[in-house]
């Protein structure tokens, strides 16, 4: 007994902590010193170019730009979520025309750059000005802001439809069958049985999609919407002060990290019944 017990103890002993300076530790520390130097360099640079007048002038602009970015992302995500439902339905339907249309829609919006789509809508629809004026939609498509929301909503609808489809299809067939056996109709099954399970799977992809939208929304500055990136470009073109870009980078990084943290917390909270203790 004692021999076996001793052997197990020997096996289960945690590995010896590595001492001294192996190559990986030297490399790791030098890389950390490099990152430290970068961080220090940025702080020193920002101190060196500290300029209260610049802040007085551009801080409100940055704040309004940030608000524009958040509004754009929020509105597009919500409209996209609504649009994604019929598209996801089409992708899962056995009807050939419906399925083909949904597939084509998703393929187009996922296969082409968001920038090209935005140009196609903002500049391209200008080619149909007479027709759009005839139906009274011209004032909508003339405005860069509405065009951006339109393009982003269509784009994110394609991505969200794929997230939704993947999540629903990740729920096993047996769940549907069991629910049918209990006499629930399809809609009730979807609402009460499938969706609660699918949404757990979809949570992380949705979080990623919001982050991608926040990052992608920077391109609206090219079609003259003054979001955070647009305000940054305006400030840079007026002052030629590089710290304008550094501040924008810090703000974007903060938003993305906060969002990632929040998604992880929500996921941890919602899946706590799945964790084996």
């Amino acid at each position, binding site marked *: 007994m004692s021999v076996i017990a001793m052997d197990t103890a020997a096996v289960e002993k945690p590995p010896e902590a590595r001492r001294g300076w192996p190559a990986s530790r030297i490399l*790791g520390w030098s890389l950390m010193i490099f990152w430290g130097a970068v961080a220090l360099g940025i702080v020193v640079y920002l101190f060196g170019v500290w300029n209260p007048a610049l802040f007085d002038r551009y801080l409100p602009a940055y704040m309004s730009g940030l608000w524009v970015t958040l509004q754009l992302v929020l509105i597009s995500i919500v409209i996209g979520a609504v649009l994604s439902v019929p598209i996801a339905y089409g992708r899962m339907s056995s009807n050939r025309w419906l399925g083909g249309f949904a597939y084509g829609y998703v393929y187009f919006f996922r296969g082409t750059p968001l920038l090209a789509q935005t*140009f196609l809508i903002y500049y391209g629809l200008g080619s149909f000005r007479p027709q759009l004026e005839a139906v009274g939609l011209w004032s909508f498509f003339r405005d860069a802001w509405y065009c951006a929301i339109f393009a982003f909503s269509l784009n994110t609808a394609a991505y969200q439809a794929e997230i939704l489809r993947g999540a629903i299809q990740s729920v096993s067939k047996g769940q549907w069958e069991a629910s049918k056996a209990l006499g629930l109709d399809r809609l009730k099954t979807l609402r009460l049985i499938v969706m609660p399970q699918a949404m757990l799977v979809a949570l992380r992809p949705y979080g990623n999609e919001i982050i991608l939208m926040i*990052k992608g929304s920077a391109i609206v500055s090219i079609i003259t919407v003054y979001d955070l990136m647009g305000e940054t470009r305006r400030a840079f073109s007026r002052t030629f002060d590089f710290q304008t870009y550094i501040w924008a980078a810090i703000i974007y990084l903060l938003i993305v990290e906060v969002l990632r943290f929040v998604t992880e917390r929500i996921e941890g909270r919602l899946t706590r019944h799945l964790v084996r203790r």
Partner: protein
Amino acid sequence: MDSALTLLSFGPDGWGDNIALGALITVSLALATLPFGLVAGFFVALAKQSGEPSLRLAGNIYTTIFRGLPELLTLFLVYYGGQIALQALMRSLGQETTIEINAFLAGMIALGVMFSAYASEVFLSAFRAIPRGQYEGGYAVGLTGFQTMRLVVLPQIIRIALPGLSNLWLNLLKDTALVSVIGLSDILRQTGIAARVTNQQFLFFGIACLVYLVLAIISSFGISAIERSVAQRGAPK
């Protein structure tokens, strides 16, 4: 008004040759970025799965920064920041010159670091899918650490990481469109010029989208060919 076919023809009246040239530049930018991004991503993944905490932390900082920054902002940081930094360097060496960074190079660096940040995550999950026994088996037959990595682990990693990497390639192809903003004559810039000159915006931006779609379709054919060949090589004989 010229007909659409004349506008798209090759030669002096048409824009077909300009757009084809733009497509060539887009593809070569993406292809030039790919090896750099793959290698950097692999090494960052190696750092992130190492047993050394400081190395892991350094790798995670890299990913956090370059996955969190907007693509356009990264491009501007490289493009303008690189110019300013180089000019400051030259000034400290006693030379007053205006330096302009090549848009292609700036695009390559910016897209490369972003690609590698995402690729490192793909490689990392592939590393985690490989059981310890594979390494131990490699050591047991007398391979060195490097040989185990090259002959035993890497071939499996490639097979596991391929779907994720193909997605990243398609993203990279789309992200090249951003480099048109700093003046590289890629598809989007060429079609944009054509659209402005001919005043046929919808036609030309529609063509731009179609060219990107065609590139994506060609890529998926290429990717499935690679997947087939990798799967064959990995199959037990």
